[in-house]
């Protein structure tokens, strides 16, 4: 028996660990450090219909136990992702979750229809919550009706299950989760980054060229845990949890909260081996906690 296996819509995961979108590119760089087939899955960088350069630099700023980013969805565009990045990833035995973004519904459906046909793309992650894009993307992640609509539209064209990535920058996260569930989402991923800003002491201006950015890292973990704890009790679709995960202990905490699997983002930057390490160390922690199979952890905080 594989104590770490997880079955989710579209995804048979060897283990619950995957790198979070935007923090792992398309895997090439991290393949220097360990075998990517080891991962439960890979969430690739957001893909938009056309290539995007993204925001001006500086694009990152450090904060207490966290960081801000305003990459601005830089990516090579749908065509190149399909012709170059995804084929490269087929050499690894690892399911790909394609993160897709856009500024109008047609962007999402255009990318979804095509990328969901790639043989190694097993699920989509609808990024309706990127805080760093100016053109209206915000509404998708903050207005339940709009979120439901885009989910529906993507579901209609996708060949693979659709996970919707929720923004934490809302008053009522449960309402958002229920809306996308009603729109047909097969799962949720949460949380995306919190909107934040840092100012430069000398210039008085924002450190990020984009002014504000998305806050990630350990600082936001308590917010992620709270939201997953709430949402998991109110929806019946599974959650892939993320936000500040840095260790096996964090993984277990996310599962306890109600996540079925997790993604690791920012921690890849301080420790490029983090995903691999966590996978290696999880069984020992399960032993210590007297847990046979990881699935026993899911939702234990409220069950």
């Amino acid at each position, binding site marked *: 028996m594989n104590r770490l296996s997880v079955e989710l819509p579209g995804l048979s995961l060897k283990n619950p660990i995957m790198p979070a979108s935007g923090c792992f590119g398309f895997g090439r*760089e991290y393949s220097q450090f360990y075998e990517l087939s080891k991962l439960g899955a890979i969430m690739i960088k957001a893909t938009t219909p056309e290539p995007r350069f993204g925001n001006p630099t500086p694009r*990152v700023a450090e904060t*207490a*136990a966290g960081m801000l980013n305003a*990459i601005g969805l830089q990516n090579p*565009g749908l065509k190149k992702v399909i012709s170059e990045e995804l084929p490269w990833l087929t050499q690894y035995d690892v399911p790909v979750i394609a993160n897709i973004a856009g500024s109008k519904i047609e962007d999402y459906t255009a990318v979804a229809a095509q990328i969901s046909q790639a043989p190694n793309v097993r699920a989509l992650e609808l990024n309706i919550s990127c805080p760093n894009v100016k053109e209206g993307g915000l509404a998708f992640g903050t207005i339940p009706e709009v979120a439901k609509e885009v989910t529906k539209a993507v579901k209609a064209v996708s060949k693979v299950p659709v996970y919707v990535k929720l923004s934490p920058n809302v008053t009522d996260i449960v309402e958002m989760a229920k809306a996308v569930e009603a729109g047909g989402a097969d799962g949720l991923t949460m949380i995306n980054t919190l909107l934040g800003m840092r100012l430069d002491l000398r210039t008085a201006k924002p450190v990020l060229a984009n002014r504000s950015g998305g806050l990630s*890292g350990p600082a936001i973990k308590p917010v992620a845990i709270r939201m997953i704890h709430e949402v998991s009790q109110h929806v019946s679709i599974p959650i892939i949890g993320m936000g500040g995960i840095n260790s096996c202990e964090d993984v277990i905490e996310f599962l306890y909260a109600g996540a079925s699997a997790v993604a690791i983002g920012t921690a890849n930057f301080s420790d490029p081996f983090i995903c691999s390490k966590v996978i290696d160390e999880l069984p020992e922690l399960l032993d210590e906690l007297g847990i046979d199979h990881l699935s026993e952890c899911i939702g234990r905080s409220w069950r």
Partner: protein
Amino acid sequence: MIKNECMTVKSQKQIAAAIFELTLSGELVSAMDQPGQFVHLKANDQLDPLLRRPISICSINQDRKEFTMIYRADGKGTKQLSKKKVHETIDVLGPLGNGFPVEEASFGETVLLVGGGIGVPPLYELSKRLKSSGVNVIHILGFQTKQAVFYEAEFAGLGETYIATADGSYGIHGYVTDVITSLENSFTTIYSCGPTMMLRAIEKEYGADKKVFLSLEERMGCGIGACFACVCHTADDPDGFSYKKVCSDGPVFRAGEVVI
């Protein structure tokens, strides 16, 4: 081959105002083959500060498996670094990026190495290599003020060395660009690292006529090319989609290659 290793502090000393020289030893050194590459450091195992810090490799000693870097202890991460003592370890990821092309200068040629402030250190290993290839190296090193000057003797041992200070408290009063102008124009190549303003000025003045190599700085996340934090536009497509990453395509670029 990029490695990740907890390397051991061999020596740490302050060599100028807020400027520290740190020597580390470990297997990772064996992978260091170009001057101008950098390492990405984490001096703690806590969450604050969270991110690694990029610092250039200043000199490499393969025999002793040691390398030296010079850095300014200014913010949180570098201050923490400066507290590390002999025998303690530091988490190093490296060597990263593409350094200065030594092979672009040949035996007997004269080249300028132009550094500003904490941009000076990577030029030291470069200078040693050029010198040992029989290249004639001239160093022009700019600092804010007298107290910030370091490695003058080290550079002087390798070739002609001009020190400029912005406030005139030491050496030539003025900027490195002033010094270049004052030199006889017999050099073929410039290698430079320092503040963006300085690099821009050098590119503008000499980019067309000379071979010019510039080492850029940018805020980084991963340091290895995965996060898209450190990109710049390519010069042939300044408003388009094509880009280079300072961390993995750079930090050294040929003048005219990217928009700085």
